[in-house]
């Protein structure tokens, strides 16, 4: 089947029951998308599916035929970081970094739906992404700063 990941087309021979997370990590070697809980509880494997956040661990690859999958590896364009990525760096919104790709894609999805979120909107919108290092206060700041900078309008 054909899978479009970060704008590039791939022919993948994934069995019907294979989840997108496995296809991305083990077949396409896109290891930026992380496996943490594997059952939709933590958000670490968040990707964008036709622009909307989706848990890659709960998404069947077979259901993605012809759809646009965006992973953390494809977020920077022409060597320019996405404003959300830059905001995470600027506000130290990461520690160990393991949840970071999922956090960033969840934030990109949130700002796309809601370009000018309140602090409460950010907390609600990001509440599906767990972080054990406890970078949450900085994540809130980073997402608000990215929104301020117009990240959700592009």
């Amino acid at each position: 089947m054909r899978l479009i990941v970060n704008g590039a087309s791939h022919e993948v021979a994934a069995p019907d029951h294979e989840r997108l997370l496995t296809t991305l990590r083990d077949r396409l070697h896109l290891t930026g998308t992380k496996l943490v809980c594997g059952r939709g509880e933590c958000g670490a494997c968040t990707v964008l599916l036709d622009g909307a956040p989706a848990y890659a661990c709960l998404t069947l690859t077979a259901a993605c035929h012809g759809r646009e999958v965006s992973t953390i590896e494809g977020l920077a364009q022409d060597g320019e970081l996405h404003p959300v990525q830059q905001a995470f760096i600027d506000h130290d919104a990461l520690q160990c970094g393991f949840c970071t790709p999922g956090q960033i894609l969840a934030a990109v999805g949130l700002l796309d739906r809601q370009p000018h979120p309140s602090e409460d909107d950010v907390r609600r919108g990001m509440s599906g992404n767990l972080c054990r290092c406890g970078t949450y206060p900085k994540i809130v700041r980073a997402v608000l700063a990215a929104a301020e900078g117009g990240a959700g309008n592009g």
Partner: protein
Amino acid sequence: MAKRFVTTKVEVEGREETKVVELPTREPEPWGVDASLHIVGRRDKRMDALEKVTGEAEYTADVQLPGMLYVALARASVAAGKMQSLDLAPALAMPGVRGAITMDDVPGIKLDGIQVFDRTIHYVYQPIAAICADTQEIAERAVRAIHPAIERLPHVLDAASALAPDAPRVKPHGNLHRASPRVASRGDIAAGLRDAEVTITREYRTPVALHTALEPHGAVAAWSGDRVTVWESTQGIFNTRSDLAEAFELPLSSVRVVKNYMGGGFGAKNGASLAAYTAVALSRKLRRPVRCIFDREGEQTDAGNRTATVQRVTLGARRDGTLTAISLDATIPLGIGGWLSSPARMYSEMYRCANVRTSETFVFTNTAPMASFRAPGNVEGAFGLESAMDVLAHELEMDPLELRRRNYADHDQDKNRRYSAKHLDECYRLGAERFGWSRARSRKRDTSARVRRGVGMASLAWGAGGGPPAYATVRINGDGSIEVLTGAQDLGTGARTVLAQVAAEVLGAKLDDVRTVLGDTERLPFASNSWGSITTASVGPAVRVAAEEARDALFEAAAGMLDTEPNELESRDSEIHAKSSDRCLLFREVCEKLGDVMIIGQGSRGPNPEKTALSAFGAQFAEVEVDVETGRVRVLRVVSAHDSGRIVNPTLAESQLEGGIIQGLGYALFEERILDSRTGVPLNPTMHDYKIPTIGDVPEIDAFFVDIPDTVANHTGVKGVAEPPIIATAPAIANAVADALGVEVAEIPMTPWRVLGSVRGGSIA
């Protein structure tokens, strides 16, 4: 001739050890309060952030090698038993399965005192075999085809049943750890209690908490000839190397351990894990690279935990608040193994008191082994001690903060030695001021409202001085770029960044020109585990010495080129200036003229000062809201004031404080491993059922440092930051809840159920 090797004391996770140290080639003057520093103390950005926001940072779970095989672990489903038979044939017959190992393949290799893949079953989820296959999916399916015959034996799950007279034996020698009870005392506790005008006795309970690092334990191993390379998610590459070398009877130089990035450790990843032993053994057997990564269920059930405690506390005091007696009887179930982390430490160290007696009983149970978990011992002890201090303050009708101030310990009473520095008083003052403590305390409590507010506080101490041995190399390349090489780890703490800041400061280099290289035993000089909040205080001084040596060499080379003397030179922004003239050279220009001459500085960490305790201190203040109808506790704000000596990078250090407080909040309110009381099966081994804080649980946090360099501790003035913030959070929150409700809380986590129990059993109906 001066001695080259001496011994010194180093404290790690509450344990003081004697270490041999090689004296550094130089011991620089401490950077004092007035030191003119430009890069140390600056809020630079995390230097590995770019790799992390682009998904390029390679974690152990991301290592993929050609021909790599995947492992799934078969685990026991009973809490105690004897395996009668283990037939792997159905698994091995499946297409794509390449091999398996059992206990017979790893004879004598032990973890937490237990034979790896032991045929005797000690706890539910104990690994019993490993299956290796072409894909993870095949390996997991193959594991499901294994049906071991296990004869069930009676088991015990908690300390009370383990200590019952006719309890089944968990260990051949019995259920008590040999060191039990561990009793320590100073003064005369009986006299102290006689002198007391007020005495309180309470019992406190803390839960088994799970680290829940997002990256699970895992390793990838690949043999080449008689040497093996192991990627492992570890807090200690050199510890892992020696563990593996010993287990597989290899010279240390035949084991290379690599760990570039890791997705959290929190104390549970301090040596070779079961995943590493498994990957190395299978890779040796099959001559292919092998990857063994725990699944989430394995991580939540068999990757270490913080021990539960029961703490029976008696405090005695004079009417004016002077403590006359502190007594603790603690029971601590270890699971099937682990080490003796000490809740007693807080009781003997935190407050001035002549008469202290602590007794700790460590018990084996048929549950998974414990492991260090961020400030092990002190977190548990702080909940008991600091809750009891509030009860005492209440009895004395005294402000809880005032009670703590009146019992300020100005030296380490147990060992009768000075502190290198202690600014807890400043933490009390600034914390109370920023929190508005007096105002909040004097606010009238509305005892009829459904949602009630309260405030509480707690103190903390943690031995975070670090120490030797630690080595660093600083080398300056032909283009003037600089590398700091040391075998330390960055767990997400920011070690990479702060070590580069130290080097850039000494060299007068632009921080952008400096790169820190960590995490490879084959290529880097030794540094110890990144545990006990020691990395910056241990390795930073070694980096400083190495950078000084490199700077001196660079200045000597530049002096010739600038027709002056080295001591006439200074550097800033990677540029060397002659003080007396306006002549200058870029580092790059000097190095290009040197050609292939590489400037290399070596540094090591010197000994700690003698007869001196090196500790970090702090005080936390919390405000909560409690709904007395639902029992729900919401933390509104936390103010956290810390004394950790000089802070190299305030932004990164504050991130650690916030993280510690948030983990402490989880410990206070949600986190608890729950076992089925009949079978010992963990009931919440998922991230949905084992609740860690989400972004929605986070209060307003004001966490800061008094930032006074500790010039006695080491010549960089730095002490540790990582563990202190988690210590005081649970008691500060519990004290705030008690303040809100007017009834005490004696057990955490303070789930709605428990809070309602307190409310209904207390004075509020």
